[in-house]
């Protein structure tokens, strides 16, 4: 019989709610709490060897120790598959499910499956990590979706245990990780591309082999009345930074942003600033950093009165945007938004390269 380990938080282990979030990692032989529901759904083919739990806060505050303890417990049980969650829309739990699955898949090469609502921040981490052995199934927002989530988790876990071929996300119903795999086809790329083009020209439906990242819609923010009286700031992904790149940005895949002072600065002199970016030829930007941060124009418009005196934020925000993963960029956007709002900025000029 297939052995499965179920990882849950303190609440779904039946040990307590917010007052118990500090509980360290513990192991219960067989199944406890939510794992009972999973075992019923697993049927005769699989059995839960043990239930591992960890407090929601303990995990995030003692991550290294928690992961080590979980790996030790999983190693001792030697299951075929690990199931974590479902975490629904619980952010801390969702993040820990994904990180635990990833650690187990990496260290022990055991396939893992978790489940949560698609807007759980854990899904962003899951996509970013994109571990081929870790799958995440979508669930409802709350525990009303428990029965359905457990049914699908059990089914998926059994398929993984049988080493069944798991196809693409769209077909199999797990959340896509953006992993591309090599497939053999009878027809050359050029023939397939021409087919697609002909279909497109005829207005017929066709399926791209390289689907674009799915973008969520942000409703437009309300316009600013009297922009000259509003606090505005410049944000750029051009990678223009003080000469010498003091914060050691890389030319690609950066994961942090910085802001640099421009109060009292009239213009950005070449030689004092440079562009760090691996996605475009930075020669023009180095000759004239205003192509990325148009400070000379902003100062001129200030003198004209189109921008009120003191209304331009005294620093600009930057990150070299090259190859940034959408999840990381979203996180940085949120951080910059919070920083801007703290200083009462009302509108943003965003220069993207």
């Amino acid at each position, binding site marked *: 019989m297939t052995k499965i380990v179920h990882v849950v938080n303190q609440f779904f282990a039946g040990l307590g709610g917010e007052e118990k979030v500090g509980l360290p990692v513990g192991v219960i032989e067989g199944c406890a709490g939510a794992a009972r529901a999973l075992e019923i759904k697993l049927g005769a083919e699989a059995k839960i060897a043990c239930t591992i739990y960890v407090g929601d806060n303990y995990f995030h505050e003692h991550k290294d120790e928690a992961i080590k303890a979980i790996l030790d417990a999983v190693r001792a049980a030697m299951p075929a598959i690990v199931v974590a969650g479902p975490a629904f829309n619980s952010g801390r739990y969702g993040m820990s499910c994904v990180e635990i699955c990833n650690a187990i898949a990496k260290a022990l090469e055991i396939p893992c499956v978790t489940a949560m609502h698609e807007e759980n921040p854990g899904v962003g981490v899951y996509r970013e990590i994109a571990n081929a052995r870790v799958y995440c199934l979508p669930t409802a927002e709350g525990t009303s979706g428990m029965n359905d989530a457990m049914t699908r988790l059990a089914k998926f876990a059994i398929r993984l245990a049988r080493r069944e071929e798991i196809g693409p996300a769209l077909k199999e119903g797990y959340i896509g990780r953006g992993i591309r795999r090599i497939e053999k086809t009878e027809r050359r790329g050029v023939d397939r591309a021409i087919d697609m083009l002909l279909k497109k020209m005829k207005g017929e439906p066709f399926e791209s082999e390289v689907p674009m990242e799915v973008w969520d819609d942000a409703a437009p923010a309300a316009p600013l009345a009297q922009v*000259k009286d509003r606090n505005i700031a410049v944000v750029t992904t051009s990678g223009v930074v003080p000469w010498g790149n003091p914060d050691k940005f890389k030319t690609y895949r950066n994961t942090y942003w910085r802001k640099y002072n421009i109060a009292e600065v009239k213009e950005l002199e070449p030689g004092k600033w440079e562009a760090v970016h691996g996605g475009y030829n930075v020669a023009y930007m180095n000759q004239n950093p205003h192509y990325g941060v148009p400070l000379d124009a902003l100062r001129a*418009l200030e003198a004209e009165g189109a921008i009120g005196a003191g209304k331009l934020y005294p620093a600009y925000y930057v990150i070299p945007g090259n190859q940034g993963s959408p999840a990381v960029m979203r996180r940085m956007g949120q951080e910059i938004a919070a920083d801007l709002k703290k200083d009462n900025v009302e509108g943003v000029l965003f220069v*993207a390269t």
Partner: protein
Amino acid sequence: MSKELEKAGLPVALISAMFPVAQQVRANRIVKGVSIPHPCGDPSLSKELDARLRREIVRTALKALESEVKGPTLFSPPVATGG
């Protein structure tokens, strides 16, 4: 990134030469930049015209911030001529 700023209630004028991409990713106020390596200006112009073009681009961006939009909208700065 710009969309997270909008979600926080900050209107964003996105100056980008890759405006079709900006439209595709559903940015709302898009200002047409000159080219990818130099969105705010054109090094083939004289210094003065280049600076003037940059002013027009920023002016257009400020105007975009004042404009009511319902979805992705492209704002084109007036084109500088001559060189």
